[in-house]
């Protein structure tokens, strides 16, 4: 029982991370109908930015709350900038071309970030370890299971970021514009929405979330390398599809479901297959309900 509870808590905190990354996928898919493969690598860049900022601030020697905030802000800002650059340089010129081309370009950008990151004068191939942003101490204990402060910080930050995102998307003018573009770009532009600007903003927002997720991921797993984004990125995408791609609520739920089911597999004693669960779930979902939990059925127009 204790074991199940601790696996559930681990699953929820991992799921919150997946949800955070999945939001970026789902928002970009919403406005562009593009799987932004580079999103996972944006997260990696966020993790590295966080790592270098934390080192520059000597966080491990004298921890302070403001330093944690600066680390997150730096990572999110760097990722937002990166998202903007990628959108401008690689995706915008292809907006009118077939979707396959954009997809190939996205894979190209992803490969470039991963392999460029491995170059000796960028991040290098050696695995770096993230300094502790806050002292890892058991905060509370629930039925014999201690909840770590890093987990609490992770979950709280992820949750706060999602609340902010929800406010932006559903309670601001720019959020209305985003939803309009996602609904129909042509009509939105006729209604006076600057589609290019909104798409760029969506990329920045999604990338900033990925940056935050990158720091949280680095804190939870402590090791960083240029291909670290690959697997969580893929799984987060699966989470987005599970919840229904294009749906913000779906991405959050999908992420949590995925995180919990991964740890359930660990609980059942198949920890070797942990990484395969996501894809098994994906195939199952595609067979049963291809639009995902909260997805709208899309009709293809000629």
């Amino acid at each position, binding site marked *: 029982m204790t074991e199940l509870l601790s696996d559930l808590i681990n699953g929820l905190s991992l799921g919150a991370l997946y949800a955070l990354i999945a939001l970026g996928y789902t928002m970009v898919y919403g406005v562009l109908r593009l799987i932004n493969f580079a999103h996972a690598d944006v997260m990696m860049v966020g993790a590295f930015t966080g790592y270098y900022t934390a080192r520059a601030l000597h966080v491990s020697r004298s921890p302070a709350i403001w330093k944690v905030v600066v680390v997150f802000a730096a990572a999110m800002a760097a990722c937002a900038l990166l998202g903007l650059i990628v959108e401008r340089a690689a995706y915008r010129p292809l907006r009118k071309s077939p979707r396959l081309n954009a997809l190939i370009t996205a894979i*190209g950008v992803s*490969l*470039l970030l991963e392999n460029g990151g491995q170059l000796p004068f960028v991040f290098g191939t050696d695995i770096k370890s993230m300094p502790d942003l806050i002292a890892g101490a058991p905060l509370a204990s629930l039925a014999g299971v201690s909840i770590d402060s890093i987990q609490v910080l992770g979950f709280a930050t992820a949750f706060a970021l999602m609340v902010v995102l929800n406010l932006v998307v559903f309670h601001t003018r720019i959020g209305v514009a985003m939803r309009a573009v996602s609904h129909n770009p042509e009509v939105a532009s006729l209604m006076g929405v600057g589609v290019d600007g909104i798409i760029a903003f969506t990329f920045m927002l999604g990338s900033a979330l990925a940056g935050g997720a990158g720091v949280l991921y680095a804190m939870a797993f402590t090791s960083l390398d240029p291909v670290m984004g690959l697997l969580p990125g893929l799984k987060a995408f699966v989470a987005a599809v599970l919840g229904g791609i294009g749906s913000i609520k779906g991405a959050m739920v999908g992420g949590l479901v995925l995180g919990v089911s991964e740890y359930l597999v660990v609980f059942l004693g198949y920890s070797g297959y942990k990484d395969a669960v996501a894809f098994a779930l994906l195939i199952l979902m595609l067979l049963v309900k291809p639009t995902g939990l909260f997805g709208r059925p899309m009709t293809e127009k000629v």
Partner: protein
Amino acid sequence: MSEAPLHLAGVPAAPVPASRAALRSALPFLIGVPLLLVADLLVPAGSYTLRVLYDVGVAIILAVSLNIVNGFTGQFSIGHAGFMAVGAYGAAYLTLAHRSWALAHGHSIGAFEGQAVFTLALLSGGAMAALAGALVGIPSLRLKGDYLAIVTLGFGEIIRVIIEQTEALGAQTGLTDIPPYANLFWIYFWVLVTVLVARRLQASSHGRALLAIREDEIAAEAMGVDTTAYKVRAFVIAAFFAGIAGGLFGHHLTTLGPRSFTFVKSFEVVVMVVLGGLGSISGSILAAMVLTVLPEALRSFDRYRMSLYALLLISLMLTRPSGLFGSREIWQLRRPRRAP
């Protein structure tokens, strides 16, 4: 303007007699097989050139088979290494099992000796990969859009995880001491088969259906093309040849590890297909050759190789989205482009 009757590349303008058609089907083998046998004798065994030639052959099979899905049908699979792994492990497991059986009993099973065992193992490996292709393809190809990309990517991961967890397949360390059955003859024999199948497929009514799906799925469906069935079939054929390539790969390297079949491998094949031109068989062959030989020539350059591939892919998509040759073959390059 058009004194020559308008006909599509590779499709004969007039029906040919059955005897000539049969000869025409056999001709590539009548010429190719003796040539390969001679080449096999000429190239010294164990040389560096030979090893590069092996790699080029395997790369050609991979690229041409992936082109059937990504080029002809316009679907986007990025898990080719997964199918390659299925074929490689399947074939290697069978030859290893046969060898231990033969060692235990002092003789082979029935009349099976080296090459016959290898051929059977290779075909079984291909069949296993094809089965895996059907299992992956049926759920994901029913859907439109980019799901195939992510499912194939995920499938490659699942295969790797399963191999890493299976003791019988050597888990993390992999299989070693696989009999080196694959030689120049066998590898290029299968290159010949792959290229011919792809070429014939392209020219057949079946291939026309695939091209129609690529050009416009809705229109193809309206014309009575059973899009899902055709997509699955293309996917299964591609998976079969990826499995064959895997089997050949394992039997010339003599060791197999799960690390050989990561995303990077799949992406390399994708880059070959895209660079050569989606839908161009000769383009794929050329790109497979260049992208296999070039890194060998620039060994010290290895560190920058993948970054360069990535830049190549992006700039290609931005400037020449249909690849170097588009969907045309090398010998059609001077012919003016057909109106879309």
